[in-house]
């Protein structure tokens, strides 16, 4: 486990979440260091999305603490956590459909820049970086699915995160798109210098991208380690790889 962190980290400790009688997360911990690529995997219903919701403030845990670079952010509103430096994407993307692509990206930047002009300039840089420059003026809702996913990531980057949480970024993408996406995520880590947490069902993407993988099942951590370690772990094979051929 990553106990001593020098550069700062997003840390969750003893997090529990219950929906009625259902225990979605049970005493779970997670540490994401700056500049780290951490994969979070587990079978459907394991609690991956719930954990992202907890880290981004959308789900209040019944117990546990979340610390951002040592400061507790437990119980803050989602917009406060976003401004503190934790950005996320959504499995369902959730673009601002009626706004233009550049407005989707600039909407987060206007809150972080002194003028609208400066925000638009930075938004254009991010779009160019993502290869979306030529589509900046189009209405987001009219674009194909693959573009939507990348705009979702560009929008999260516009929140200037120190920690970026990607919720199934490859869902519904084809092999070519997944290859490009893997490369983009790796470059986000090096060029934006943020810690990236990737929740994904695509094992190829996770195994090639992440240096560390945390496996959860039934709301608990069942294994944590390098891709090779995790693949060898009997508990993981039993709970996950054995049932899911992904």
């Amino acid at each position, binding site marked *: 486990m990553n106990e001593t962190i020098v550069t700062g980290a997003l840390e969750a400790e003893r997090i529990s979440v219950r929906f009625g009688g259902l225990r979605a997360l049970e005493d779970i911990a997670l540490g994401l260091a700056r500049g780290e690529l951490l994969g979070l995997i587990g079978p459907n219903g394991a609690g991956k999305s719930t954990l992202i919701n907890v880290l981004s403030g959308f789900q209040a845990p019944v117990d546990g603490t979340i610390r951002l670079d040592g400061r507790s952010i437990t119980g803050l509103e989602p*917009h406060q956590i976003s401004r503190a430096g934790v950005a996320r994407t959504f499995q369902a993307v959730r673009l*601002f459909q*009626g*706004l233009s692509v550049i407005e989707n990206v600039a*909407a987060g930047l206007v809150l972080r820049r002194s003028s609208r002009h400066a925000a638009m300039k930075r938004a254009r840089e991010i779009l160019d970086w993502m290869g979306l420059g030529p589509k900046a003026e189009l209405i987001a809702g009219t674009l194909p699915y693959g573009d939507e996913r990348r705009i979702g990531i560009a929008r999260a980057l516009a929140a200037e995160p120190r920690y970026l949480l990607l919720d199934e970024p490859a869902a519904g993408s084809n092999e070519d798109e997944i290859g490009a996406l893997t490369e983009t995520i790796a470059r986000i880590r090096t060029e934006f210098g943020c810690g990236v947490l990737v929740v994904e069902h695509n094992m190829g993407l996770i195994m090639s991208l992440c240096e560390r993988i945390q496996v959860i099942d039934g709301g608990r951590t069942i294994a944590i380690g390098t891709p090779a370690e995790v693949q060898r772990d009997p508990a993981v094979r039993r709970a996950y790889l054995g049932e899911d051929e992904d």
Partner: protein
Amino acid sequence: MARHAIRLAWPFLSLALLLLIVAALGSLAPTVIQRVITEAFIRLVMVIGLYLFVGNSGVLSFGHAAFMMTGAYGAAWLDIPVKSKKIFLKGLPNFLGQAEFPPWLAALCAMGFSGLIALIVGVPLVRLSGLAASIGTFSVLVIVFVVYSNWNEVTNGTSSLIGLPIYVDLWVAYGCAVGAMLAAFLFQNSRLGLALRASREDEVAAKAIGVNVPFSRLVAFVLSAALVALGGILQAHFLGALNVLQFYIGITFITIAMLVVGGTGSLAGAVIGTGAISLVFELLRQLEVGFTVGATEIQLPPGLRELGVAVIMIVILIFRPAGLMAGREIPLPGLFNPSTARAP
């Protein structure tokens, strides 16, 4: 540079120009038509005020007529002659009862007062979303209506309040409509306006990028209330008389119809919707009054106006749910930009 400025401001400039043409033509027309156009401009101030909140936040408000009421009565408290106040408004506190403000100052104060009321009721309201928020705004209207209908000492109750200085003519109404459009245009292009429009598209995603949704909504709600109040103030000082029934269900329906028919998604929608419904309303009113074809006199039954507007709204909602303008602003002529302009 000048071209750049024109391109940026075009959605506003084009509409201001359009209204200028209407006003200029109107000023040459007979008084009756001038009055119709003036009333349409006053409605436009109300609809633009409503648009500033509804269009940017995506939360439909059924309660904005409450702020027309607080605005109109607030201004009346300040600028009705002292003699009339002694007869109709015995309950006014001394500093109001003895004073007679110039109309422009009375209007500003009443807009501020309405903004303050909006701030107070807005704090809980902006935490609601969807239908709950809309019902919440409607209950504000009912509360304000009941209070103003029964607070005889300062509102003259359900009887009319008369003796207001009449200063609103075609050009005053035009100036206020342009001012309201400018305010709405600046807001929708502001940083807060963009954040609020993002929350209109997806509230959850907006929170995730750092938008404080309740706060953004509250700012829009207060500004919108002040503009809508100006509409109420203008109407009161156009007619010279004031009655609580002017600012209840009827005006709520007509202003929402105007906004929905034009499209809630753009400033141009608010303007075109107001124009279209005003035109239809006026034509149907003529039919109600009666006209003659050859030797036959045709007179259609009263109530046709409201019915007609309702039918138009239903037709628009079915066939063009985003409204006549469908969220777009007026496109820039090719002179300035070859590509087609869109909503900001």
